C-alpha cells in the first residue's frame, strides 16, 4: 500500500475533516507513518495550489484555496453561513487563539458563563470538544469548518495569532506578573 496515495484518496473522498488517529487505526498503520504521509502531501498542496491541506490539531481536511472562491462560486452555489452573535464571536475567538482550552479557562477570560454558547458552537460544528487525558475537563478547539468559513487554511494565519496565542496572561498569575514587570 502506498500510504501517501491512499491517504490522499481517503481525504479527497471523505469531504469532511478526519481524525489523524482514526485514519492510522483504520488503515492499520502507525501514527508517524500517517504524519509522514501528511508532510509529503503538504509539499504537494502548497500555498499557491488550488487545493489546501488543512491540519488543525488531530483533524485534517482537503479544501479549496480560499483565494479562488470568487471563481469557484461561478460553478457551485455559495455555502450558507449564519452570522455570529457577539457572545458567540468572542467565545469562538478565545477558542481559536487559545485552543485546546477548557471551559473554565474560557470563562476566566470572558468573565462570564459560556456553557450555552459553547454548546451552540459545538452543534453548529464550529468548535470540537474532546476528552483529554491531560485535563480532567473536556477541551475545546476550533473546527476546520470554522477555519474554512474564516477563509484561512492554517490557524496561524489568523490576525495577531502568535502574540495572542502565546500570551500567557491569566494562565499563570506568577508569570503574568513577571511579564508585566519586564514591560
Amino acid at each position: 500500500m502506498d500510504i501517501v496515495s491512499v491517504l490522499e484518496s481517503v481525504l479527497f473522498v471523505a469531504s469532511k475533516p478526519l481524525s489523524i488517529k482514526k485514519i492510522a487505526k483504520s488503515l492499520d498503520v502507525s501514527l508517524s507513518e500517517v504524519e509522514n504521509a501528511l508532510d509529503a502531501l503538504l509539499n504537494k498542496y502548497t500555498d499557491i495550489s488550488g487545493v489546501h491541506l488543512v491540519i488543525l490539531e488531530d483533524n485534517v481536511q482537503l479544501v479549496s484555496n480560499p483565494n479562488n472562491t470568487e471563481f469557484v462560486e461561478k460553478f457551485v452555489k455559495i455555502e450558507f453561513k449564519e452570522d455570529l452573535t457577539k457572545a458567540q464571536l468572542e467565545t469562538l475567538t478565545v477558542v481559536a487563539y487559545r485552543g485546546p482550552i477548557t471551559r473554565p479557562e474560557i470563562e476566566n477570560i470572558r468573565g462570564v458563563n459560556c456553557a450555552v454558547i459553547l454548546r451552540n458552537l459545538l452543534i453548529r460544528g464550529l468548535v470540537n470538544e474532546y476528552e483529554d487525558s491531560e485535563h480532567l475537563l473536556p477541551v475545546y478547539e476550533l473546527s476546520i469548518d470554522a477555519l474554512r468559513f474564516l477563509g484561512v487554511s492554517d490557524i496561524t494565519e489568523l490576525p495577531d495569532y502568535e502574540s495572542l496565542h502565546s500570551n500567557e496572561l491569566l494562565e499563570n498569575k506568577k508569570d503574568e506578573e513577571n511579564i508585566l514587570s519586564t514591560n
Partner: protein
Amino acid sequence: MKNNLQIQSKEFSGPLDLLLSLLDEKKMEISEISISAVTEPFLNYLESLEEIEAEELSDFLVVAAKLLLLKSRSLLPQIDNDEESDINLDEQLRLYRRFVEVSHKLHKMWLDEKKTAYPHIEEIKKATEIVRPINFSLETLSQSMVQLLKRLQPPKALPRTYIDKTITIKEKIDKMKEMLKANKKVSFKKLIETATSRTEVIVSFLAVLELIKQNDIVLRQDESFGDIELSKI
C-alpha cells in the same frame, strides 16, 4: 462620536463587556483607578438587571464585588491587602479587550463570503450495508429536538436600558453632611432607611468611607453587624 447613544442601545455579552463600554464612554484607559471610578454606573446597571436569571446575574455580581473591593481600598488605603493579588480586574480586562478587538477582525473575515474555502463533495453512493449508529434512538432524537428548540429560543437580551440617574457618592456625602449639621450623631441604619435600592445602600456605605478618608467623621460600632454611628469631628 455617537458614543452616548451606543451605550444605551448596546447588548452586553457579559460583565467585562459592560465594564469596557463604561470606560470607553468616559474615554478612560484601563487602570485600577479608572475601573473603580465606574463602580456606580456598573451597580446601577446591575440594578436594572433584577429580573434576569440568577445564573446570569452571578457573573455580574462577581465583578461587582471586585469593583467594590477596589473602591473601598482606594478610600481606605489601610485596608487589609491580603486579597490584592486576587482582584487583577484591570489585567483581566486588558486581556479581554485584546480578544474583543481581534474578534472584530475575525467577524470581518467571517462575513467575507468571497473567502470561504470549499470541501470536495463526493458523489453520493448509498452504503450497501446499513448499520444502526449506536446513539440513534427515540430518546436521543427527542432530546436533540428539545435542545434545538432551546437554541432557537430568541436570546433573552440583557436590558438595553441604561439608567441615567445614578445616585453618586458625592450626592450621598452632601446629604450626610447636611444631616450631620443638624445632629451631632447619625445612625447608619437611619441613613439607609429611605434607600430605594441595594445600590443606594452600597453607595451610602462608600460615602461613609469617603468621609472617614477626608477626616470629617469618626465611626463607632459596638458589635459586628450592629448599627454604625457616625459623628462629626
